[in-house]
């Protein structure tokens, strides 16, 4: 019921956006930015993250007239997010750069809190993100969307425009590859 209300609210906001109300788009941004930001971060790392978030929402604003409402706004927005992330990963690859830059520098610069993570956790985090870098883009995508962002397989299929069976199969192979990598790094699961 809550989800349904959320969808209705998105639809109302889109109507207002199409009537030229930019404040309605601000509300859409506030409702969805954290998920978009998190997906981009898991796919592309922290470098240029703000720029990428901005690019997603600018593309969404410009494309609102073409949004057919055959899917939920969030699915459509996540597809744009995935496109932006893919473009960015290609650009990183062209620059021959470590694709995701969630490196030790970022881990060590996390704000110190009373419950700072122990060293072993930091090590596991580093190994995990190295493992994700190790995967192909397709495999990393399904792991990020399904296992980290907790999107349902049906939504991922719609988002990537692939059959749900392909999502399942990619997830199976991606998990196997990641597990193998983690175990080779000494992580006991």
């Amino acid at each position, binding site marked *: 019921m809550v989800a349904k209300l959320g969808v209705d609210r998105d639809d109302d906001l889109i109507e207002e*956006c*199409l009537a*030229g109300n*930019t404040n309605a*788009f*601000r509300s859409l*941004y*506030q409702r969805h*930015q954290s998920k978009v*930001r*998190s997906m*981009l*971060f*898991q796919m592309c790392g*922290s470098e240029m*993250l*703000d720029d990428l*978030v*901005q690019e997603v*929402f*600018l593309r969404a*604003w*410009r494309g*609102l*007239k073409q949004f057919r409402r055959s899917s939920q706004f969030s699915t459509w927005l996540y597809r744009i997010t995935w496109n932006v992330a893919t473009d960015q990963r290609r650009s990183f690859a062209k620059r021959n750069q470590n694709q995701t830059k*969630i490196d030790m520098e*970022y*881990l060590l610069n996390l704000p110190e809190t009373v419950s700072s993570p122990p060293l072993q*956790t930091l090590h*596991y*985090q580093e190994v*995990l*993100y190295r493992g994700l870098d190790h995967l192909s883009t397709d495999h990393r995508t399904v*792991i990020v969307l399904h*296992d*980290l962002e907790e999107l349902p397989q049906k939504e991922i299929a719609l988002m990537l425009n692939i059959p749900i069976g392909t999502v399942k199969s990619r997830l199976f192979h991606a*998990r196997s590859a*990641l*597990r193998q990598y*983690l175990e080779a790094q000494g*992580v006991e*699961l």
Partner: protein
Amino acid sequence: MKDEDTLVQFLRRHRLDPPPPHPELEERLMAELKPVGHSFPWLKVLMGLGLVISLLGFSQGRRLQTAHSVDPEQLEAYLIQNWETTTARSEEITIDLFNYQEN
């Protein structure tokens, strides 16, 4: 517990959260928004220019066509006259082949 579950638990336990956005990101985005449907004013200008050029070309073509159009009766009279002149001249210089003698 299944292998898949232990892996997913590990991923969720050790996932990182993204750094917070720049405090002005939202305002920067809002400042970039242009009215929906008017994001390509140059396209409309180009389409308008194209239309004007097409209309001008069409009217110019019509004008040239009109300037070069010939009254069929005048044309027929001209051709007949031309033909008659030509045949009259050829009669004048016709050689009598039957009575021709070489000098």
